[in-house]
């Protein structure tokens, strides 16, 4: 599914300030895997995830998504990939302000050109799945952190993408709510068979994932199975 070979990401290339954020990453993720990415702050986790999510391009190296090289795509094709193949979940939720939960979930489908009736039906279904059907007319500022993140997850699932990319989705939540959100990801993995990449600073949560990749100074320093292979929270 995800094939990354010798990916390097540099900033300020060719200047004295040049920094290498990703330094020759090789990563292979098969369809249906649930991978936790851990590592110190500034190690390059988000940078790697943004490249996987077609939001950013590597300075060198190759990246294939489902067999298609991403480097050769134009802006519209990349937008299409982000729209159909990938669902993003962010630490800071990133819901569109002044738009109801329902509108937020509908948005990826608006960009995909889904008809309004079908869009609203699917959005309601997803919100119900997240237990947010009672709150679908609420605007983001009327929701709690956990509720916002559930709306965001529903939005990530809108166009039924193959991959869910979650950058510290529990980072802004207390541990109880965080566990609840983690439950949802595990459920999505189990029931919807999505490929999930999950950045976290919590070793506890990482241990729940079948596979844990550790990044340090832009390199992958360890890639091993988590202790809990069952994929449920106790």
């Amino acid at each position, binding site marked *: 599914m995800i094939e990354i070979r010798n990916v390097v990401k540099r900033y300020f290339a060719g200047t004295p300030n040049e920094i290498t954020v990703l330094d020759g990453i090789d990563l292979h993720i098969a369809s249906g895997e649930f991978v936790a990415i851990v590592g110190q702050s500034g190690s390059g986790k988000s940078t790697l995830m*943004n490249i996987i*999510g077609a*939001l*950013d391009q590597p300075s060198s190296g190759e990246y294939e998504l489902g067999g298609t090289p991403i480097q050769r795509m134009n*802006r*519209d094709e*990349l*937008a*299409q990939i*982000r*729209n*159909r193949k990938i669902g*993003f979940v962010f630490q800071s939720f*990133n819901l*569109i*302000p*002044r*738009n109801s939960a329902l509108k937020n979930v509908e*948005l*990826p489908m*608006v*960009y*995909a050109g889904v008809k309004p009736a079908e869009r609203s039906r699917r959005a309601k279904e997803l919100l119900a799945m997240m237990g947010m059907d009672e709150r679908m007319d609420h605007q983001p500022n009327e929701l709690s952190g956990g509720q916002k993140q559930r709306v965001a997850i529903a*939005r990530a699932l809108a*166009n039924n993408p193959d991959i869910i990319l979650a950058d510290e989705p529990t980072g802004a939540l207390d541990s109880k709510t965080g566990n609840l959100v983690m439950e949802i990801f595990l459920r999505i993995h189990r029931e919807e068979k999505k490929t999930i990449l999950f950045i976290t600073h919590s070793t506890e949560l990482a241990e729940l994932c079948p596979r844990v990749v550790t990044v340090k100074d832009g390199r992958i320093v360890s890639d091993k199975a988590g202790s809990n292979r069952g994929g449920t929270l106790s």
Partner: protein
Amino acid sequence: MIENLLLSLESLRANKMRSFLTMLGIIIGISSVIAVISVGNAMTSSVTNQFAEFGINNVSIGMQMRAEEISGEFSAAAAKVPKDSDRISNEQIDAMLSRFPEIETLSLSEDAGRGKAKLARKYSNVSISGVNAGYAKANKVKMAEGRYVSDTDIKGTRNVIVVSDRTADALYGSNKAAIGNNMIIYTDKAIKQFTIIGVYQYAQPSGMGAMASDKDLETSSYIPVSTAKKDSQYKGFTSLTVVPRTGTDLTVFTDKISVYLSKMYEKNKEWESYAYNMKSELESTNSMMKTLSLAVAAVAGIALIVGGIGVMNIMLVSVTERTHEIGVRKALGAKDAHIRTQFVAEAVFLSVTGGLIGITLGLILGFIGSKLMGAEFVLSPYIIVGTVLFSMFIGIFFGYYPANKAAKLNPIDALRYE
């Protein structure tokens, strides 16, 4: 597209004051254009109507005091009364008629005072004019009953009169009943008596409104010019109107007659002749109106450009403010075109809303302006549609650059923007 419009609506609602201030330039520009155009239209049409009443093809000729005479005198009010030898005589009129075969009708009129026509306790205010048969044609007098003043009436210096239907109605109850009656008119100086031979349809001058109450309205009544002259010490005329045959070039004809008359008055030190036609008057009024409209339109155009720049400025601010949101939208799969349309739609919405407010305001101003000038207000759908399209164009033109800037943002840079 509709989606995008709704999206833009939401962000504008969130910044009501800012949106309104941005629209102000457009509101001012559009409303002044609309106001000026509608007042201009109203004036042009009322002027046209008024000239049409006078008879657009008529050529007015006459005599006036020489300009140097007026300025030479210590006061223009000390205007002299022309002596009979200075006036245009009957012989001169005949000479002119034979000299200019293109004259179809010649209209004479001689003021014969004003007064009250009375019958028992009923009355009607009248002004009396001595006229010839040509007057009716030149001034488009429409008969309702009986006949107009004829050449025979003039030759015979008959005491006959043609009155308005208002007068006929006030005194005798109907047009028919009026004919044949002896009508008595009390003027300042005398009591005059005429036999009614005809009744004409009174036409209210346009743009005047009802100045006197209906009952007291003064209407013209016409008597033979010779009858009027009988009481006057002067036999000649100071002014008359000629109507050339259809097909005559009005300007050329007016010039010719003007030259002819100038020769006639060449040796007169106090008086000179004039000849002009309404058509050239109308044309010069129209062209003056056009120049005026153009000048105001230019000012309004500048206001619109300033308004457009205001829209552009606010859109640039909005794009910067919402850079992070744009990043999120891109992460969700928005193509460049989606973002661009969203922001152009927002700019168009701003400018069209401004345009609509401007149209409303402009029409109100135009309405008030037209009423103040006593002209009829004309609402032109073309102007409204044109203005809406124009404000849409402003939105697209000035919104495109900021929208494109937003669309071209790099997804990750936009998303990371704080």
